[in-house]
């Protein structure tokens, strides 16, 4: 019975993910001509990791924008981008990772490939998960603002050396469609394709490996999961402790103890798998006392 619910939930979630991927990358003419969109909507940051150099991108990537402002000569920090992300984070938390992110969708699809899966041992997994916070701090916030030349200009370190979404959504289609850009590719391009290949291979064997260990946007949103307006709860009275929620969780969260964990991407699989419907999700404006979490 819960398998049917899981399948139905999976289909709905896939449709939502595809819909948002199309919405954020709806400039079809860009894919035809190997150019990017230049309209006013690019003043706004999308809530997901979606490269603004993707030929279809209609909005700005928040992680790229944050680095671009910091690397510029005028400011060393972007209040506009961080404020936007704080607002998205406090309302939705990591629901954005689970339902809206196109690169998350890519990883979900890769994990569906029928190959043996790797279950990371708990201790190294827990340590590696901290790496995404270091990526956020060092590559997105500190280096673009601090490592500058004599004119005060820096680099977008995360975009330049790590971001696999930029290579997949921007680099590969643009170099395939644009001869001039193709001629400019060199060692850095090979490095970035290598990073993308590593992430793709990792995502086949470890569910959402990029989100778990590297994504700076996921790291930022994770800070809000415990108190975001969108939250989940487990009813202890009706829970029978069958463990089906833990078994289906793609992020290896201890669902019954820490359903609002920073690592939960709000995919809702636990809710769909629960045989007693003990797991609920809601938008909660004023917290109720009975929904307090276990310590």
């Amino acid at each position: 019975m819960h398998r049917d619910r899981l399948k139905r939930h999976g289909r709905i979630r896939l449709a939502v993910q595809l819909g948002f991927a199309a919405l954020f990358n709806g400039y079809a003419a860009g894919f035809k001509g190997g150019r990017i969109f230049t309209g006013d909507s690019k003043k706004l940051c999308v809530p997901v990791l979606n490269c603004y150099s993707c030929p279809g991108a209609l909005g700005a990537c928040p992680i790229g924008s944050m680095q671009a402002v910091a690397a510029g000569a005028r400011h060393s920090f972007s209040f506009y981008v961080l404020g936007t992300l704080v607002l998205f984070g406090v309302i939705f938390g990591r629901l954005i990772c689970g339902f809206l992110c196109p690169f998350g969708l890519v990883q979900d699809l890769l994990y569906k490939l029928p190959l043996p899966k790797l279950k990371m041992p708990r201790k190294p997994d827990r340590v590696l998960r901290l790496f995404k916070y270091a990526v956020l701090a060092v590559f997105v916030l500190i280096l673009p603002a601090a490592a500058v030349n004599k004119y005060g200009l820096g680099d977008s370190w995360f975009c330049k050396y790590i971001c696999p979404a930029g290579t997949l959504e921007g680099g590969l289609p643009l170099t395939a469609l644009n001869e001039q850009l193709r001629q400019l590719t060199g060692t850095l391009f090979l490095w970035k394709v290598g990073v993308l290949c590593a992430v793709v291979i990792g995502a086949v064997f470890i569910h959402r490996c990029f989100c778990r260990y590297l994504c700076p946007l996921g790291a930022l949103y994770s800070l809000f999961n415990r108190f975001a307006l969108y939250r989940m709860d487990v009813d202890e009275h009706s829970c029978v402790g069958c463990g089906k929620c833990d078994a289906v969780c793609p992020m290896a969260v201890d669902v019954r103890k820490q359903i609002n964990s920073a690592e939960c991407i709000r995919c809702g699989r636990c809710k769909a798998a629960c045989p007693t419907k003990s797991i609920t999700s809601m938008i909660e404006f004023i917290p109720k006392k009975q929904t307090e979490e276990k310590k």
Partner: protein
Amino acid sequence: MSARARLCARLGALVLGSGFVALGIWRNEVTEVFAKAVRICLECIGIG
């Protein structure tokens, strides 16, 4: 996290986020974001 702490954190984050956005707009950061977003980002695509 207690209900009271959650409420305070939410309100704080909402006020902080809105304030940051307003400050960013006042500092004309939107123009910088737009300028970057409408040009092909060579770093993003791996050219440098």
